[in-house]
């Protein structure tokens, strides 16, 4: 038997969370070091998985399967493909940098890191799950620590409201998707005689055939259930008109949690929408394709415009996430190779970029105690590292060639153009707007004159912060310069999705 690397990745944060809970809450430094050690370990393992994924074989790899509740066909079944491998790496990266950035949290660090790791364990679990039940199980584990993390350590003015709003939105989405999943289970059982939550069994051609009778109308099963399942998950991906929780949540959350939240959690929604919505219900995806395309287009353009008029530094980034996640959904909705490869890359690229953004915003806010653009200025002198990182992030966000954003967004636009050129034209407006709001933020925060009250009060960032920023920047450069590090891998995953769609 091979080394169960994926299980180790999933359980590292969970076990670390347990250990941290049992530590003495007064010994804050020991807690931090334990957290960092676990994060480094998880990162190394995820890097290892990323580079040892065998591209010549493709398909799901590092498979492990254990019975969980065999009577009902529930198993602990994990494995990664070309789409989930980069996301596992992304989670490792964000977990590592998140711990570095949160080093100075002084209010109950034991609880903070324990909940953060519980969240990370849930996220890993979803990305590697090949069993629908297991996916839900870990999905919910990822949702509830968010409430506590935002409510306890968040921004005092909106945290209670934002945390509750976020939790209710996400729970609502996931339970609707759950009802869809249960319906799928019984449908697959009826069609194939095998009652299982195993997604590899459920995605087999013909497993989801059949009709749903409702008010005397016969609707194909896949068409009926696609919307609750896809939208239920896509809520976490921030799809319009259910995106409202996301900027509020991002802004209220403490820095590391914003990074996790925008960087990884939103991908969780998009990923589950792809894995369960599109891959298990391909006919439904084809049927509702234009609706998703339309909603995603609104996300892209509307999100960018709203970001433009924000005066709060963090809200700008919050809405830019809505806009960029719209691009992911846009890529999915094309259902063609270019668009989906772009979407897969965009999930990774946006995750890294937005983690960097939120890290930078957090560092500025911790020192200036304000995020209002008119009150800031001249930070480049005091915080050169932060300024450079933010500018790099901004360039990625605008899709500058040579950086990861370009590698991701270009194929998306190609795919969309191939499908509906007009949509591509409209969506491209967002690029201009993005450039606008990023440059405005850069100018007003980092350049110009520093307001008098900040003179001498801005302390430089620590080495740990620099490592975190540096790591994230490096990844974006690497992917931008060498797209072949990731693009072929994602393409392998996408080919599998296309195979399922072709069989529809």
């Amino acid at each position: 038997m091979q080394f169960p690397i994926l299980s180790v990745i999933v359980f590292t944060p969970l076990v670390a969370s347990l250990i941290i809970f049992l530590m003495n809450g007064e010994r804050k430094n020991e807690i931090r070091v334990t957290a960092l050690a676990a994060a480094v370990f998880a990162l190394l393992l995820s890097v290892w998985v990323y580079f040892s994924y065998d591209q010549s074989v493709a398909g799901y790899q590092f498979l492990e399967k254990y019975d969980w509740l065999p009577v009902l066909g529930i198993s602990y079944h994990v494995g990664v493909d070309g789409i989930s491998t980069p996301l596992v790496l992304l989670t490792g990266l964000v977990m590592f940098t998140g711990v570095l950035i949160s080093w100075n949290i002084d209010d109950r660090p034991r609880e903070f890191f324990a909940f953060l790791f519980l969240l990370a364990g849930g996220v890993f679990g979803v990305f590697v799950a090949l069993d629908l039940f297991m996916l839900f199980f870990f999905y919910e584990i990822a949702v509830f620590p968010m409430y506590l993390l935002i409510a306890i350590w968040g921004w005092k003015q909106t945290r209670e409201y934002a945390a509750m709003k976020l939790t209710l939105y996400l729970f609502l989405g996931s339970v609707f998707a759950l009802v869809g999943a249960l319906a799928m289970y019984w449908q697959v059982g009826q069609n194939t005689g095998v009652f299982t939550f195993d997604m590899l069994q459920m995605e087999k051609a013909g497993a989801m055939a059949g009709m749903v009778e409702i008010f005397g109308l016969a609707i194909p099963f896949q068409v009926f259930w696609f919307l609750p399942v896809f939208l239920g998950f896509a809520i976490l991906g921030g799809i319009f008109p259910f995106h409202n929780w996301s900027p509020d949540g991002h802004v209220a959350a403490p820095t590391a949690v914003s990074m996790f939240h925008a960087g990884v959690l939103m991908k969780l929604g998009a990923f589950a929408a792809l894995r369960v919505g599109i891959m298990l219900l391909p006919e439904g995806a084809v049927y509702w394709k234009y609706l998703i395309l339309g909603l995603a287009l609104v996300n892209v353009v509307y999100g960018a415009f709203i970001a433009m008029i924000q005066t709060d530094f963090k809200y700008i980034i919050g809405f830019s996430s809505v806009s960029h996640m719209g691009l992911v959904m846009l890529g999915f909705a094309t259902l063609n190779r270019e668009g989906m490869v772009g979407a897969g890359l965009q999930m990774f690229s946006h995750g890294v970029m937005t983690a960097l953004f939120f890290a930078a915003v957090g560092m500025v806010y911790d020192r200036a105690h304000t995020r209002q653009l008119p009150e800031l200025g001249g930070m480049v002198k005091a915080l050169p590292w932060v300024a450079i990182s933010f500018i790099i992030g901004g360039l990625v966000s605008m899709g500058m060639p040579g950086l990861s954003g370009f590698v991701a967004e270009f194929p998306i636009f190609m795919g969309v153009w191939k499908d509906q050129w007009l949509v591509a034209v409209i969506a491209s407006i967002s690029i201009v707007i993005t450039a606008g709001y990023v440059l405005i933020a850069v100018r007003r925060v980092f350049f110009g004159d520093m307001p008098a009250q900040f003179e001498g009060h801005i302390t430089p960032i620590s080495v740990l912060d620099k490592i975190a920023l540096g790591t994230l920047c490096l990844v974006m450069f690497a992917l931008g310069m060498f797209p072949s590090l990731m693009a072929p891998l994602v393409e392998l995953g996408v080919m599998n999705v296309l195979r399922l769609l072709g069989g529809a």
Partner: protein
Amino acid sequence: MSINFLSILPEVLMLVLGILILVLDPLWKDEKRRLNLGWLTAGGLFAVLIISLLFGRPGAQGELAWGGMIRFDMLGYAFKLFFIFAAAITALLMMDVEGTSRRAEAFALLLASTIGMSLMATASDLVMLYLAIETTSIPLYVLAGFLLDDKKSIEAGFKYLLFGAMTSAVLLYGLTLVYGFGGATGFDELSTQFASSTPFSVGVLILLVVGLGFKLSLAPFHFWAPDTYEGSPTPVAGFLSTASKAAGFAVLARLFLTTFGSSAQEWQMLLAILAAVTMILGNLVALAQKNIKRLLAYSSIAHAGYALLGVIAASELGIASAVYYLLAYVLTNLAAFGIVTIVGRTVGSDDVRAYDGLSRRSPYLALAMLAAFLSLSGMPPFGGFIGKFLVFFAAIQAGWTWLVVIGIITSIVGVYYYLTVMKYVYLYRMEGEDEESNPIAISRPHLLAIGILTAGVILVGTIFAPWFGLSTDAAASLFSAALLK
């Protein structure tokens, strides 16, 4: 129909334990020594639990025993285990609670009630059933009003008694009609008499639902629950909301599926409407509660609605899911009430604001509370998630999608109020006090109880196969006897 001592082994042992406690009561005059009454009860009950686990397991098919009075089968067995466990935990919680800790009567009444519940879950005859229900209820009326110095407790006991007596009368009326038309008292003979659904059997069903609805605190028979829970000693409230409710479910499942299997269409619809009303009302009214015991009362009303989904599905999977749900719910709700007991003892208040800053005052107690409340709201990796999952799963299979949709929407409401309580625990600070210098004192028995329960909630929520095996065995034994296949 044999005389099988194994079938009533736990009841006999509990009776012996109860007598022992009453005998020791006058002998142990020393106040310190009297504290051991609780240890004796709890320890004895755990011993009974282990003996039942080792020796008390019935055959897969089940058999009638004691002249057809009881059916010795897996369904009754599973529920008996729940009751004995719940009673043991309740005994632990009753120790170190002012008013119940040194009173032998309190523990004896607890045991008497548990014996009644065990007989309820196995009763296979109308006479036995009614006797068992009364044996369960009367000690509970007394326990609810046990704190004679506390007006609220007296009110609680009295309200419970009045409500209980009235619904018991309605139930008895229903049972006499069943006897009158069926000409027998055994469930098996009756099921042949009621082999086809008639308007009459539907009428009888309504009367029975009233009687059992009170035990389950289904809306609209729930009015007693919040007041009774609020006033009674907290461990007793926990026992009422878990074991007593589970006993009602055992009777409901057995009576309706075996004797009234032919009228399934009718009672399914009847229960579905009640379940929908119960889930909506319980969750919505809980939103407005400021007293944690009242909040938990409404939440437990709502939970009865979810567990009912499994019975409504009326399939083997449905009953198994309901049994699993009740297992998870018994563990979780006992934990919740246990925490309320502990906090109430130090703080002296059951207001939700009394929980401000709890996570700083006692981090691990706060963590246990988090586990219990997340389990109640149906989040993994706690028992509540898989419980809800299974009942929804069974209900979807049986085609009750609309009921499931109501269930999930109301469970989102549930998430709101459970998390609101956690907000007080984790986010808010004590008014003008330093939390670190005001820790919550946790006594040894309480610590033991909470430890067992929290571990149980996580165990039931992560490792499913053994518990689900027990649940399916219980369901299968019922279906081997049921008309409805």
